[in-house]
């Protein structure tokens, strides 16, 4: 799927021409150009029309600000996710990601596992020191969120601008209703092109 080509080839167009009865007075090159332009215009319209709530995952795993780092790490490992929103009274007050935790434990992001081995003692010391810290003490604030009726175009813009991997979706009252992760977006070939 990585190198999947969404543009029709000249052979595809030729085969389509053959399936239509009657003479089509457009050259294959012109049709190809037209098709690409139509696809582009269609996509530009679509990402304005699709809303955040249409693509979000409504089942959000989150943590309360009083939960400890250890509890949160267990949650992340169990759910196989790399970050979660910190929620108080249904409102997102911060975000805690794998990246934030590594930073606190002084683990080099580029050599995660190797970095732990090399500095095993120090990492354990840091972990012992921080594992009972509360989420509210280590989370990233303010949380960047998006309103559920915002367009997907807006979602892409925020993800790219802030270089973030997940964005909690909130309703008009600011209450958490879902989450959009870069990982989920990358599963969709069209969204992958947009994010690249």
């Amino acid at each position, binding site marked *: 799927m990585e190198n999947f080509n969404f543009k029709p080839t000249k052979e595809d167009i030729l085969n389509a*021409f053959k399936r239509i*009865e*009657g*003479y089509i*007075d*457009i*050259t294959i090159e012109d049709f190809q150009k037209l098709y690409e332009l139509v696809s582009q215009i269609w996509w530009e319209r679509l990402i304005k029309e699709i809303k955040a709530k249409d693509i979000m995952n409504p089942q959000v795993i989150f943590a309360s600000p009083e939960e400890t780092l250890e509890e949160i790490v267990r949650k992340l490992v169990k759910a196989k996710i790399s970050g979660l929103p910190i929620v108080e009274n249904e409102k997102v007050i911060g975000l805690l990601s794998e990246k934030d935790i590594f930073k606190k434990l002084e683990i080099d992001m580029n050599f995660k596992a190797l970095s732990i081995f090399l500095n095993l003692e120090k990492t354990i010391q840091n972990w012992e020191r921080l594992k009972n810290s509360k989420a509210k003490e280590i989370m990233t604030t303010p949380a960047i969120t998006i309103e559920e009726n915002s367009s997907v175009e807006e979602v892409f813009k925020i993800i790219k601008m802030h270089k973030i991997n997940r964005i909690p979706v909130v309703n008009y009252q600011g209450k958490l209703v879902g989450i959009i992760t870069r990982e989920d977006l990358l599963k969709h070939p069209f969204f992958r092109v947009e994010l690249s």
Partner: protein
Amino acid sequence: MKPLRIILESKAPPRVRFKEVCASFLGAFIGIGLIGVISMFFFDSRGMPLIIPPFGASAVLLFGAYKSPFSQPRHVIGGHLISALSGVIAYLIFEGTLWLATGFGVALAIALMHLSRTLHPPGGATTLVYILGGAKFHQLGFLYLLFPVGIGIFILTFSAVIVNKFLLKRPYPEYWW
């Protein structure tokens, strides 16, 4: 082998099915034949045939490329009438200078067809038929729009709708206006 490959690997749209070839043949035969018959019975004896060469070009589009925007009634009727008008105007202005009349006439026809979204390539020939047709056409003046152009193109379009839609079961016209 190379010249043969060049011929076989043409960039032209693919050849239509044989059934389409037969349908186009039959359609054009009926359409142009009908104008010919009407012309023979009602107009030839008066020295002014109803059929003019541009109708042959229109028939190619109406029956051979009926899906094309050029072939839709708006373009066929509008394009011929606008081109006829352009021919008459060009001749009136540049009567003495034929090259200017022909050049201006066809250019005006294209411009007006573009502006009115009625582009129909055979229209250019309709313009030239009037300018180059001699006294027989020139004495018609603006009547050229009605006869032979208006009546002829109306019959041809009408027969194209009947033959394509009802006899050959082709989806024609794709739009009227």
